[in-house]
């Protein structure tokens, strides 16, 4: 029984590892595609002034804004969409670990993982942007 549990445990770990790698590959692929379009469209224009912080607009900072822009193939929003995929990768990893601990009926670690997920969700939706 314990051997079986160990086996399941290792399998889940390997799947989690693969998921992390695919997540990064996918994200960099999207960023690269968006980046190439960005260079084709804007490559010859002058660099914006990055030495003064102005912050980004809704199109780059909200989920809906990024999706809308990316759906109409605006290059910068496609890059931001890749950024979203990159941010989602470790968060998805926590969700998978939560499922894995639940399968193992490890209540303690289901609780611990849920707590970490809770903190991240709070920082996403808690209105901390100030």
């Amino acid at each position: 029984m314990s051997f079986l549990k160990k086996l399941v445990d290792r399998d889940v770990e390997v799947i989690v590892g693969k998921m992390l790698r695919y997540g990064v590959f996918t994200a960099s692929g999207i960023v690269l595609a968006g980046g190439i379009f960005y260079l084709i469209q804007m490559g010859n224009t002058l660099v914006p002034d990055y030495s003064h912080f102005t912050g980004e607009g809704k199109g780059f900072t909200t989920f809906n804004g990024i999706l809308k822009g990316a759906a109409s193939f605006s290059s910068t929003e496609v890059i931001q969409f890749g950024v979203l995929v990159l941010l989602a990768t470790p968060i998805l990893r926590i969700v998978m670990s939560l499922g894995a601990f639940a399968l193992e009926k490890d209540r303690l670690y289901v609780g611990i993982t849920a707590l970490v997920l809770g903190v991240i969700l709070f920082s996403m939706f808690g209105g901390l942007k100030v």
Partner: protein
Amino acid sequence: MTILTFTLIMLAGAYVAGLLGSLTGLGGGVVIIPLLTLVFHVDIRYAIGAALLASIANSSGAASAYIKEGITNIRLGMFLEIATTIGAVCGALIAVFTPTNTIAILFGVVLLFSAAMTLRRKNEHALQQGSRLSHVLKLNSSYPTKDGIVHYELKNVAGGFGMMLIAGVLSGLLGIGSGALKVLAMDSAMRIPFKVSTTTSNFMIGVTAAASAVVYLQRGYIDPGIAFPVVLGVLGGAFTGARLLTIMNPRTLRYIFCAAIAFVALEMMYNGIHHQF
């Protein structure tokens, strides 16, 4: 400068940062911030946003290999992520009220400390008798070495947890993975063997950085024009670095790089003190 030249130079710079970060074990994020601020005069807030992304990409890309080898202690990582994520969210909150010059000075101090940390003696000893809390939380584990499976137990869980809170705050405030502090907490407080603490620290960095990066994204710190070359460059550099590490022992190189990074850290502090951020 046109966007094309800027992107190409940045891509090359981020590649070098990723390579250096991987060879020294400091991580690409920590090297990209001085590059962006001191060389390209990018506002430190944009630099922090980009560095967080680089840390997530690095951590997630490398973690899969270590997990496959069975070195990473996933339960331990999960448990300590409670501390690092709470810390990171707090750090991202404090950042709004912290002047950028103070952030730059603090960054210099942490960078100096991290460079010193990579030169210190590593703990290779596996503790056999752990504390009661380590049993309750099921944190004790084993990992494969050349000489077979080594079992280890750990102690001072509360102390390690507390140091992870600080590591989390610094990570959220400065936009770095703060791997050096995480390793210190696991190595010296909890007495975990070096190999396990470095891989587990790397495993945790992605989640820690994501906790504060979602706040920074909403605050507009992440610019696509910077994110694009930085993420791809650092990732490429880290990939090359990991390949190089398997064929050579970078001890001498590590000393040279650490000295160079200490110099960069002083430069950051100097500029911060003279209010140039």
